[in-house]
């Protein structure tokens, strides 16, 4: 696989898997407006995933017929995040990353520039959405503050992987990306009266693991649900 294809797969899988995780809120979100918001964010991500995976091959085959070890998404996006606070925390951590990454790609002149120039505007809304919820929950009740705190701390060890350089993206300045991300996330957490976690940003065994195809335990079950219809009924259409 060419480096550009490997990069399209990495970014495409991030978008696809997070899209699926957000889609799991359909019918279960705390309020109707939030259900619609999460579904719309998921739809943006699915559109990005389709554009990226189509650069590599058949989008349906890639989404539905690969096994766990062939996915190149970061482990952050595959976490279940069943508490709404955890979904908000993940949205903050990931959309801040994706917005900065697409921002750099949009300003470069490479194969991902057209998509990035479009997607950066969409992810700006995702980031804004996550920021407002982080402020509301972090600086909310004792209960919402505690759950936001637990959520950010629980996900913190998956954030180091975001800055492992992805092969095929020579235009990205990963150090600058990390600095931008850290500054923006810190700013939001502080305004939300939440402490920036002090723990490691990656477990020793897990650094860069998702990008190598090594995933966490919940991912296999998520894939089983995501792929089962397509695998059980090949070629099924609406």
């Amino acid at each position: 696989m060419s480096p550009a294809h490997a990069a399209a797969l990495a970014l495409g899988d991030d978008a696809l898997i997070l899209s699926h995780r957000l889609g799991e809120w359909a019918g279960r979100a705390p309020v109707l407006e939030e259900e619609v918001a999460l579904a719309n964010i998921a739809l943006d991500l699915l559109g990005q995933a389709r554009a990226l995976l189509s650069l590599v091959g058949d989008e349906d085959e890639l989404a539905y017929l690969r096994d766990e070890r062939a996915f190149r998404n970061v482990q952050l996006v595959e976490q279940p995040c069943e508490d709404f606070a955890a979904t908000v925390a993940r949205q903050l951590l990931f959309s801040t990353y994706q917005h900065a990454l697409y921002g750099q790609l949009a300003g470069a002149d490479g194969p991902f520039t057209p998509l990035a120039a479009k997607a950066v505007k969409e992810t700006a809304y995702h980031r804004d959405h996550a920021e407002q919820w982080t402020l509301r929950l972090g600086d909310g009740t004792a209960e919402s503050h505690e759950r936001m705190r637990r959520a950010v701390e629980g996900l913190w060890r998956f954030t180091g992987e975001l800055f492992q350089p992805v092969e095929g993206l020579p235009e990205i300045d990963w150090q600058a990306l990390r600095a931008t991300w850290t500054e923006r996330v810190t700013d939001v957490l502080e305004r939300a009266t939440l402490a920036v976690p002090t723990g490691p940003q990656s477990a020793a065994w897990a650094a860069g693991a998702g990008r190598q195809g090594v995933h966490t335990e919940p991912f296999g079950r998520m894939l089983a649900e995501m792929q089962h219809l397509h695998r059980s009924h090949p070629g099924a259409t609406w």
Partner: protein
Amino acid sequence: MVTTPTPLEERLRALAGSVPDPELPMITLAELGVLRDVRVTGPGRVEVELTPTYTGCPAVEAMSADVERVLREHGQAEVSVRTVLSPAWSTDDITAEGRRKLAASGIAPPRPGHRAGGPVAVELGPTRHAGAPAPAEPVRCPHCGSADTTLLSRFSSTACKALRRCSVCREPFDHFKEL
């Protein structure tokens, strides 16, 4: 390569452009600004370029099918519709007439001049966070024209709209978000 459209291409472009948007049927594809190009490449053969509003916009497939159908009905045997991403669509591509029709249908049109993209400074209902700067230009209620409106949700019935409520006439309404 830039070439002057032929009279046939102009006619086909007008036809394709007059197709209503599947999700906002009060405006046409031309008014939405998503029809990029119509080129005749041979007798009865035409190529159309559409650009999606949002990357994941599910309406693109319906738009393509509608454009294809209309051009076939007008004698074009082979119609191919391509989706192009670049340059990225912006709400500034919506025509003045398109904006007028959105407002007339109860959807607050996007404020112009936001090609750079991203959220315009937002406010989250009654809030204890006074950090956000005030937006340059208020979103007006499409029903009563009041500038006193509140954001209820950043994402509404589709990704391109936000849900707001007018503080004067109390009606909720959709706002086509600046992109």
